[in-house]
């Protein structure tokens, strides 16, 4: 449990992005930028993921999908919004089907701007995310931060 920050697993979900940030996220994991040197593995399973990378804005149809993926992740968890669309809605903010950035449905910890976000910026965002993750982990071990199940139980008692 202590060394989990040495190997955080990342899950990537494409909200309603234009693909530009998605392929940059993938490019991060390939040999030239090699984010895997931080022990990062790209996983498709939310149950095993520690960091959620969201690209693209939120629209009416994918809002429940993003919410569900976030809820399925185990605590502690960190959300990194990659690209200006995931931060605010970006160039598509005025479109009829866009609600806004990823923070409309889930709490976002790190914002990575850029259109498209450069791999260096994405790696920086992930490393910042690991920092947040470390903090949460320490708090959880001290019992200051409750995990999802405990929160729900606390909610019921109240």
């Amino acid at each position, binding site marked *: 449990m202590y060394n989990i920050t040495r190997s955080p697993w990342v899950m*990537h*979900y*494409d*909200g*309603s*992005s*234009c*693909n*530009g*940030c*998605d*392929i*940059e996220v*993938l*490019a991060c994991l*390939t*040999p*030239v930028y090699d984010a895997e040197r931080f022990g990062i593995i790209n*996983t*498709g*399973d*939310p149950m095993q993921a520690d960091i959620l990378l969201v690209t*693209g*804005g939120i*629209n009416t*149809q*994918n809002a429940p*999908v993003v919410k569900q*993926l976030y809820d399925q992740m185990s605590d502690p968890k960190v959300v990194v919004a990659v690209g200006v669309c995931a931060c605010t809605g970006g*160039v*598509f903010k*005025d*479109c*009829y*089907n*866009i609600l806004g950035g990823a923070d409309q449905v889930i709490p976002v910890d790190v914002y990575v701007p850029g*259109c*498209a976000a*450069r791999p260096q910026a994405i790696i920086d965002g992930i490393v910042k995310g690991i920092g947040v993750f470390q903090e949460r982990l320490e708090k959880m071990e001290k019992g200051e931060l409750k995990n999802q199940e405990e929160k729900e139980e606390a909610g019921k008692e109240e």
Partner: protein
Amino acid sequence: MSKRSVIPYGPQHPVLPEPIHLDLVIEDEKIVEAIPSIGFIHRGLESLTDKRDFNQMAYVAERICGICSFGHGYGYCETVEHIMNVEVPDRAKFLRTIWFELSRLHSHLLWAGLMADAFGFENLFYQCWRVREKVLDAIELTTGGRVIFSVNKVGGVLKDITPEMQKMILETLDFVEAETKVLKKTFMNDYSVQSRMKGVGVLTKEQAKALGCAGPFARASGIATDMRMRGYAAYGELDMEPIISNDGDCYGRCEVRIGEIFQSIDLIRQAIAKIPDGELAAVVKGNPNGEYFTRIEQPRGEADYYVRGNGTPNLDRMRVRTPTFANLAGLCETLKGADYADIGILVVTIDPCISCTER
């Protein structure tokens, strides 16, 4: 008769970088029917014509998709230029051709990597993307952007490719050509790769025609259609023939796309040899008034652009029909009768671009 069951596939799935949802009707391990449902990335950017003027729309058009970004910007600009009777300078036409082919190179190498990833050949995936980074370096050197270039505007281009840059592009092409030859050996001759691709997802010429498929997907089934033969931009002055394959299976599609990598390298060399001196952009006056349909060849296939202007800066309508939208029907056909384990490969094999499809 065995029991039928419905298995949902997507929108979040390890093999897919983008969300698409398929309801698969399955009998034992065989797929009987596939029903696609889209809309996870629908933004409605075509409606932005109300809020942005026709010059700004070129930047919105580039953000329809991050992979074929240059093509969308170009297709939109060409349509507007045709409506406004703008004569684009020859140098700009050649520059656009060079950038277009560079973006095709990076898109096809990207696809080759994703395909390798889909059939579980991680090493090959990394090798393809390593080569692709060199192409991105050349793009970054000439335009400043890695995936979204933003060099197109109505009337011409914004940046120039100097002789030093041309030299660097040619060096990159030599590297990419040599590396792709090695990759081609693995894709075409490796026994385990062949066993995953040969005879999988066969689409005959008749089926491809009846389902209106486009681009490499159609060319792999033996339909010799390539919008570049129309001779837009500078393609009219370059030598090229559509690359086709008659296999109609995943192997054929792979063969066509790898052939197109070499074709693109050849086209860029021809364009750099022939590029004339001159202006970068023509002066554009007034507002578009009229309508026009254009078709261009994107890395993924034929894309249709329709613009309707009404004499004000805000267009009445911008419409883009993207290649994946046309290939959806073909995808559902190839999925019928396929093994459940092959879905990942079959979906990747049409080179899906969902953000294009839903706009």
